[in-house]
């Protein structure tokens, strides 16, 4: 669901070079696995974590596989060409890692029935197209629990990117977690209308702190909000990868995307010949969502956070367990029931207690 719409001539050339190198050194009995990234591997966020997953495949399967990646691929016609190129050059498994690659992936898959495709965050599947994504909202719930325990002003500042279901779900889940330990917690949301604008993200964090927030969390990609938290002496959460290096006195934990085991399992399935099209939405239980070490908090809060992770992981606790009301006070999830995946995927309402009006 991430988009970086910048032409990167240099990145493209590099990627073309890598592809050429990949072609010439391939062995006949190796399974070639291709990765298509929407951003640069150096974004320290979304694409960076996918590339860590690619490296895990190389490490786990050794010379049984040969991986190739193309970075900074624009969503649209470029993507189709890149995916087709990978399919035509003997790749047996291709991961396409952005929502906007969905239609190109499905198109190329129809033309190349012998190649398996894995598309992240999409919903269109086929005989040779699987989809996968992660239940990051589970991590947000845990972050909410920690915030509920750690906030002194009972105000959390949330730096949002775009008001899409993925982000709204995260805000709701965070608040449910916080309310489970502290019903007085309020969330203030500031939208920056960008996945990635360090300056603006940082400014948003400053504005939220000035308005009383003493915990900062974000659904944007740069470490800037966390850096601001550190400089202003408040606490915060990292995003996508462990950002402790930027704010070792401020980061409570970070919700980490971990594609490693999924990528290894799927690549192994292609090597074995056991690959089947599937729809995977994994949480803590699959290892797709991980928490960075719990730091800058008392031991009892860290213990509670770990217990929450364990409860969600084992299925004892579902973040969206009723009764849950929307902002109008209407019950949307009845007592004792949990939200189904359909409701979670299309979530376009705030729950009661979010101090923001959802932009249209």
């Amino acid at each position, binding site marked *: 669901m991430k988009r970086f719409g910048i032409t*990167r001539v240099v990145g493209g050339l590099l990627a073309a070079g890598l592809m050429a190198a990949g072609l010439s050194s391939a062995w006949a009995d190796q399974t070639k696995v291709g990765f298509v990234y929407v951003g640069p591997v*150096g974004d320290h966020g979304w694409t960076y974590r996918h590339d860590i997953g690619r490296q895990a495949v190389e490490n786990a399967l050794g010379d049984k596989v040969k991986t190739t990646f193309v970075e900074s691929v624009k969503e649209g016609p470029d993507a189709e060409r890149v995916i087709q190129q990978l399919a035509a050059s003997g790749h047996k498994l291709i991961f396409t890692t952005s929502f906007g690659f969905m239609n190109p992936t499905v198109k190329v898959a129809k033309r190349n029935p012998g190649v398996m495709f894995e598309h992240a965050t999409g919903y269109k599947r086929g005989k040779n197209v699987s989809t996968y994504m992660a239940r990051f909202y589970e991590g947000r719930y845990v972050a909410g629990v920690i915030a509920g325990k750690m906030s002194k002003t009972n105000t959390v500042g949330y730096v949002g990117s775009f008001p899409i279901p993925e982000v709204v779900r995260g805000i709701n889940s965070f608040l449910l977690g916080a309310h489970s330990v502290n019903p007085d917690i309020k969330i*203030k949301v500031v939208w920056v209308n960008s996945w990635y604008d360090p*300056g603006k993200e940082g400014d*948003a964090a400053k*504005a939220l702190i000035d308005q009383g927030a003493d915990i900062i969390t974000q659904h944007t990609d740069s470490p800037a909000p966390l850096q601001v938290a550190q400089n202003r002496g408040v606490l915060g959460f990292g995003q996508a990868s462990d950002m402790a290096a930027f704010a070792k006195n401020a980061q409570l934990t970070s919700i980490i995307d971990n594609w490693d085991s999924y990528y290894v399992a799927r690549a192994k399935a292609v090597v074995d010949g056991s690959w089947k099209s599937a729809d995977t939405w994994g949480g803590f239980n699959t290892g797709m969502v991980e928490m960075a070490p719990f730091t800058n908090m008392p031991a009892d809060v860290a213990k509670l956070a770990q217990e929450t992770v364990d409860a969600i992981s084992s299925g004892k606790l579902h973040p969206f367990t009723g009764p849950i009301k929307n902002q109008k006070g209407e019950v949307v999830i009845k007592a004792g029931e949990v939200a189904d995946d359909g409701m979670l995927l299309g979530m376009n309402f705030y729950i009661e207690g979010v101090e923001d009006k959802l*932009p249209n």
Partner: protein
Amino acid sequence: MDIFVQIVLTVITASTPLLFAASGELITEKSGVLNLGVEGMMLIGAITGFAVAISTGSATLAIFAAAIAGAAAAFIFGFLTLSLLANQVATGLALTIFGVGISALVGAAFVGVALEPLPKLAIPGISTLPVIGPIVFGQDIMVYGSFVLIAAIYWFLKHSHWGLVVRAVGESHDSAHALGYPVIAIRYMATIFGGAMCGLGGAYLSLAYTPMWAENMTAGRGWIALALVVFATWRPGRLLLGAYMFGGITILQLHAQGAGINVPSQFMSMLPYLATILVLVLISRDKVRIRLNAPNCIGQAFRPAH
């Protein structure tokens, strides 16, 4: 009062990079050169400043290096457009794309590295005064530098001999040439100065604003700086005002959201551009104002007849 001080401080940091880049571009455009590569030069300055700060540990060296890198990028632009007479608009756009690419390439090694922010001035007893202490006496060196810069540019264009020459070259390169002024050399200098200031604007981002390197971290500020020059109708005083207005809008918008006031943030994001278009429309209707302010030869290649 405390929140007021904090807002002012945030507005200052948001406006400073715009002020640097726009002042540089103002001089470049006053000499008759349109360099659309501001965004690219800012990125080159940002990565150079950050890389030097990390490897030498010296903020002073980092600031100088960023200015030199921006100037070098502008020199390439100058060589292509002034010596080889390439189209300025196309070359400027190419410079932006080049800057995005090269800064990402060099910056790959610096992703995820943290840096201490540029130190703030701390005069015992004065910087801790309420309100004016942190605002007037508690800034970092580059903020003061940006004010000195804008004052110097005002004086240079308005009161100095060479400022008059730069303006003459921008107004009518043929007349300036006929009077014996080295048109190309002056444009080179104005372009290189502009690049150096864009480099400083970028360095402010990576050293003070958000002390880190991230690909494409300028996120469109170069384009806002370009719009700002037109918005200011090529006048240094209005440029200062405009930079703080553009910076202020962004920050107040975020505060309004946090306070629960429902402003469409998309609308606020486009406000600087909207204001620029408005100014363009207004000055285009009035021939006198255009003649007084917009450099007449902007974007035109100069080919000496003899």
